[in-house]
């Protein structure tokens, strides 16, 4: 069919893009207006604090004296400070220790609470107690048990070993203490996430595996473990970010000592910001901490991505 075009004079005048946009906006204004409060809230609670953090990291701040712009001086001090290197080392050792201890513990507990055995409901509740208690409370509990003079664990271990036992005299012992405490606190959340994954696995798969002669270990290795990879990943990611940023549990247990042996980055940030009020310097530590958390997230997603490709 031949196209019949109208003469130009009869065609409606072409709208300017800006006019079209305004018309479009007017026509679809409602969704934007409804979204606006959320956007404002997000900007207020995420963007502004983050920009503020960056701003303060470039200042030398002093309580009652004011701020002075110092450029990257705070970062320069951090990068050349042996204490900050010790903070990062302590953080990574802490993270590795918590994951190594808590993940197997959580997996075992998740398998247990996912079964239909009697008494599982009670066990599930008991397992959740460490997670619902405040870190400061559990830290005080640990301190009481390990008190060098009257702690029941100290007394029992001294009796068993035949010589005095004081866990927190060394850097290694103190690190073990904070790892034990955090792993004990973290495993219930990991357990819940993994258990949710386990319960979503169709029973038919296990039945088919049994028919094929697969034992319990093979069922776990070939069915449970691969199909709970995503919840396991989520659990590890959540606990890693939480552990990297942890300050209150560690501070309540050891205050970062002995020396700077357990002064993880979160504890250092807490001291600089809230004990010394060096907000500028603390902000630069905050940026380092965010970078570390993002790094952990990126590494995990890469590992997960590679696993999926394989």
């Amino acid at each position, binding site marked *: 069919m031949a196209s019949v075009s109208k003469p130009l004079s009869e065609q409606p005048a072409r709208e300017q893009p800006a006019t079209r946009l305004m018309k479009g906006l007017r026509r679809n204004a409602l969704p934007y207006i409804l979204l606006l409060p959320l956007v*404002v809230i997000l900007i207020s609670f995420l963007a502004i604090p983050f920009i503020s953090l960056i701003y303060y990291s470039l200042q030398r701040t002093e*309580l009652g004296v004011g701020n002075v712009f110092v450029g990257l001086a705070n970062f320069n001090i951090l990068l050349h*400070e*042996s204490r900050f290197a010790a903070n990062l080392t302590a953080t990574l050792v802490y993270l590795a220790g918590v994951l190594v201890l808590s993940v197997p513990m959580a997996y075992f507990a998740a398998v247990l609470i996912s079964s239909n055995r009697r008494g599982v409901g009670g066990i599930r509740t008991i397992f959740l107690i460490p997670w619902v208690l405040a870190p400061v409370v559990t830290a005080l509990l640990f301190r009481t048990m390990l008190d060098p003079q009257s702690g029941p664990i100290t007394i029992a271990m001294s009796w068993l070993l035949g010589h005095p036992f004081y866990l927190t005299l060394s850097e290694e012992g103190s690190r073990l203490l904070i790892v034990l405490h955090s792993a004990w606190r973290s495993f219930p959340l990991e357990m819940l996430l993994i258990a949710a994954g386990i319960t979503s696995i169709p029973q038919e798969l296990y039945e088919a595996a049994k028919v094929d002669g697969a034992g319990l270990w093979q069922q776990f290795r070939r069915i449970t473990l691969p199909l709970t990879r995503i919840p396991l990943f989520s659990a590890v990611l959540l606990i890693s970010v939480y552990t990297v940023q942890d300050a209150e549990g560690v501070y309540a247990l050891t205050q970062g*000592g002995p020396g700077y042996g357990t002064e993880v980055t979160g504890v250092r940030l807490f001291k600089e910001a809230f004990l010394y009020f060096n907000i500028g310097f603390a902000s630069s530590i905050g940026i380092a901490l965010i970078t570390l958390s993002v790094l952990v997230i990126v590494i995990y997603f890469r590992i997960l991505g590679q696993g999926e490709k394989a």
Partner: protein
Amino acid sequence: MGKVKVSRRQFLQTMGVAASGVAVSGILAACQVPAPPPQAANVTSAPTQESTTAPTSAPAAAGGTVKWAEFYSLLTDASGKLNQDWIAGVVKQFEDENAGWKVEREAIKWDQIDQKAILDLTAGVDHDLMFSSPQLMAKHLKADTYLDLTPWIEKMPKAEQDDLNWSPGWKSATVGGKQIGIATGVHTRTLAYNRDIFKAADLDPDKPLTTLDEMVEVAKKTTKADQDIWGLGMFLGNSRATIELYYAPIVWSFGGDFYDSAAQKATLTGDASIKAVQWIYDLVHTHQVTPPYSFASDADYNNLIMTAFTGGKLAQSMGYGSYWIGAMQEKNMTTGCFPATAECKVGTGGVMVQPGAARAQFTNAWCLSIHKLSKNSDAAWKLLQTIFKPENLRTYPDAGLPARLSAWESPEYSSDFYKIWLDAAKNGRPMPPTPYYPELADTMSAAMQEILSKKSDIPGTLKKFEDEWNSKYSGQ
């Protein structure tokens, strides 16, 4: 009148716009730069001849409210009933004596009151009278938190001034040529010792030790580690007590210091400092006369020093505070000494001035200061004078030992026991006048812990920590 129809769409649009407007205006209001605080000079100028009369005169204005920031409220110090009652009594006395004036008590936790004073100065929030920490006076001077009390003090009779200005607590509030606080009492420390343990080891409990070497020898003779009885109790954990009560007195005894006030830098690697740390190290690791758990990262100062001593586990307890005199009496180690009476007698528990060349221990006390933004500084000074009346200071439970020298001449402080405490107080020293004292104390505490836990090289470790502090704070 016809009905105006509003569609659901129009209603939602209007509400959306209104909500956005409220949110944006709220954020803008929150982000608005606060109005600057009124110029301090306009609010509270130094007292003048007209505004400040003799100490016993009434406040200049006809009446008003004096704000007193303290930490004995039920909200902040639930166990401090005695202090709460005392404050209520002093407030009533002030209000009775100054018609038209009321005192408004502001409850702030004791370990936040100094920061609050500085933060509120920045925020333009005024206070009148405030408790203040002597260790933080250099910080307050830098932040200009408190008024210089000198013009008021100069109007006090000379005898009255001398009665108060003798103590280290007073001196620690003398900074930069200003007097920004007045000590309400004396908290000092001695070497407490168990006379029974001394006698059992054939040591004369009536012969005071005079040198650090004697302390070590006594500790060696009295330690029975298998029974958890130790010759010399110290606390070397994560706390300012480590620098204040153990490291500093030993450095002073070796004739040095750990802070150079003129150059404003830490001198942790000075000879005296290295000797002091070595001395402490030897007690723990070489002679093994101090409990190994003294430097545990979760060690507790009260347990290690006070409870262990009153429980008969320590032959000598270094840094034994005057606030623990009552604890000795509770365990029948003394009689009639708490509260102080003329009949005070020592039993198992004795005290001596810290042995060593300096014979000095850290001594402090809560001070009272007037906030820079005070709108009633004359009335605040008047309230301070009411508090400092001899009969009021004597009954202030948290004062520790008397701030007034004349009070020490009263019969209840005439015993040998209290003469030793007075000697200790007179020899007492404050912490260094740096605005970054908390950072210095924590740095030294961490250095001590690293040396003791890793048995690391003393000069090298001290150098590392000295450099860390000086790189950030020296010269300021």
